[in-house]
């Protein structure tokens, strides 16, 4: 079983909301330099889904990260969790793209890898929250796909996937190779072990440039993208919270109830 997991490096989505800053001129969102980037948490669920299959029946997991300014300690996390190889698509040309250019470059990298049974992505990346790249890869490679997986099992050349819906889940069966995007309902991704971290440190990632995956500059970045980001801003918060006190928690609760009644909220 050869598996690929697409893992994006993002600014830490768990950082306190007040620390997010928007540079309206550059149209970027930043965090203070003290807060390190992370592997996208949704992608960690995708890594976990692949690892569970590897645990059950063996196989090889290749993580791919695309972007600029990739930090070794960050992008090696899938290796420390148990992935076998790491490919970095790192080049200035991969920046300033959109879902199209990203899906295209990843699809071409997967094509170059060859012989791949399952491709996992997170349900969306926690920076742009688009949820398009996984399906884009499937469309470009002409593969069947399922989104929002909460459980993935493989038997007899088929994947059986539980997909989260608005009111429960559905079971979908599809032949391999296939693309699966994974949702957080899968359950907590495992922590890297010390052994895993040591092994990841020694492992050298493979770096591919656009020419290595036969992608033309016209298909990347500004030239290749179809969506234009025209504005980035932070909505204004009103923020006037009345803290209700009391001698004891019970008293505070009772006066909260009275206040809500007075304000006709109850």
């Amino acid at each position, binding site marked *: 079983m050869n598996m690929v997991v697409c893992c994006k490096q993002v600014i830490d*989505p768990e950082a306190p909301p007040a620390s997010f800053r928007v540079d309206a001129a550059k149209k970027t969102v930043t965090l203070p330099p003290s807060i390190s980037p992370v592997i996208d948490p949704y992608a960690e669920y995708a890594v976990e889904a692949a690892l569970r299959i590897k645990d059950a029946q063996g196989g090889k997991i290749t993580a791919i990260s695309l972007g600029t300014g990739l930090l070794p300690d960050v992008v090696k996390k899938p290796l420390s969790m148990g992935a076998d190889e790491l490919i970095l698509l790192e080049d200035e040309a991969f920046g300033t793209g959109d879902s199209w250019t990203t899906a295209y470059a990843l699809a071409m990298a997967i094509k170059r890898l060859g012989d791949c049974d399952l491709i996992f992505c997170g349900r969306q990346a926690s920076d*742009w929250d688009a949820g398009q790249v996984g399906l884009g890869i499937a469309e470009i490679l002409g593969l069947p796909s399922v989104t929002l997986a909460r459980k993935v099992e493989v038997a007899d050349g088929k994947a059986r996937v539980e997909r989260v819906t608005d009111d429960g889940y559905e079971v979908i069966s599809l032949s391999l190779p296939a693309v699966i995007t994974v949702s957080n309902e899968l359950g907590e991704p495992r922590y890297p072990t010390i052994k895993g971290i040591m092994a990841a440190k020694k492992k050298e990632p493979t770096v591919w440039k656009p020419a290595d995956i036969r992608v033309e500059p016209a298909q990347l970045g500004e030239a290749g993208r179809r969506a*234009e980001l025209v504005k980035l801003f932070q909505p204004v918060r009103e923020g006037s919270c009345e803290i209700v006190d009391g001698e004891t928690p019970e008293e505070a609760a009772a006066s*909260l109830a009275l206040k*809500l009644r007075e304000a006709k909220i109850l």
Partner: protein
Amino acid sequence: MSEYSGVMIFGEAKEGKLAAVTTELLGCGRRLAGDLGQELHCLLVGGDVGSLAQEAIAFGADKVYVVSDPLLEAYQADAYVLAAEKVARQVMPQILLVGQTSIGRDLAPRLAFRLGTALTTDCVELALDPTSKLLLKTKPVYGGNAQAVFTSEACPQMATVRAKAMSPLERDDSRQGEVITVEAGLEPSSIRAELVERVAEEVEGVRLEDAEVVICGGRGIGGAEGFRQLEELAGILKGAVGASRPPCDNGWVPSGYQVGLTGKIIAPDFYLAIGISGASQHMTGCSGAKTVVAINKDPEANIFREASYGVVGDWKKILPALTAKIKELMAD
């Protein structure tokens, strides 16, 4: 762009009627079509969806395209995307809108890649640029910590739209419209990802999306048992219980309880957040709530920046007293 014309809504059915999000999209589409001086189309795809066409017209559609086929009875991505692609290529709308639902999230990106166009997902606002007439698509990004406005010159200009972000028109059964039937032309072999089973996890009482009162618990609740106490208060107020992501991921409550970016979008009158830190990821799911009240032991928790009223302390002590007092007040 000139050969593309009209605004098309991808319609969804729920319990034999148009889904609420579809009526909201028709309301928004009507406004955009009016501004462009073009027609509003509604696309209905399903096993037998012709009966919904008049409802789509009553909510604002000029033309309804109906694709009925046994292979479209339940949502299966491969079949639905083929049907939607066929109609989109035939009609060539300038704008194509889909609900940000479990179907829409899955269908719209596939369709955009097939049509070679750009899609913006989870939009909360749509408007036309006064000069270029391009669709300005506003969506929360970075887990709701910022908002972005996207445009695209590729047609159709596609967006998925969040539930409750738009307002439907008043239903008017005297409105006139045209119904056009399109053959799906599907083969069973075109379905590569096959639906085996659908499991609805029934929730007792009021549905979370429809509830006027929502009692929501977070990581601070600590386990499944704690949610019983939330259910008690929800019962008294005829509301529903919800949760932020951690309780769902930990299996304390079913995933259908989740409120937030990756869960349900709600807009109750009264929203009580208990043991919820107030991450933007969660708050973006309840930003439509009229009054937010928070109970949290951390006075610095972000939830207090979003709430109108708050109590700082241990919910295990506060909630029983609050429930008792509310019970008493309600009895009066």
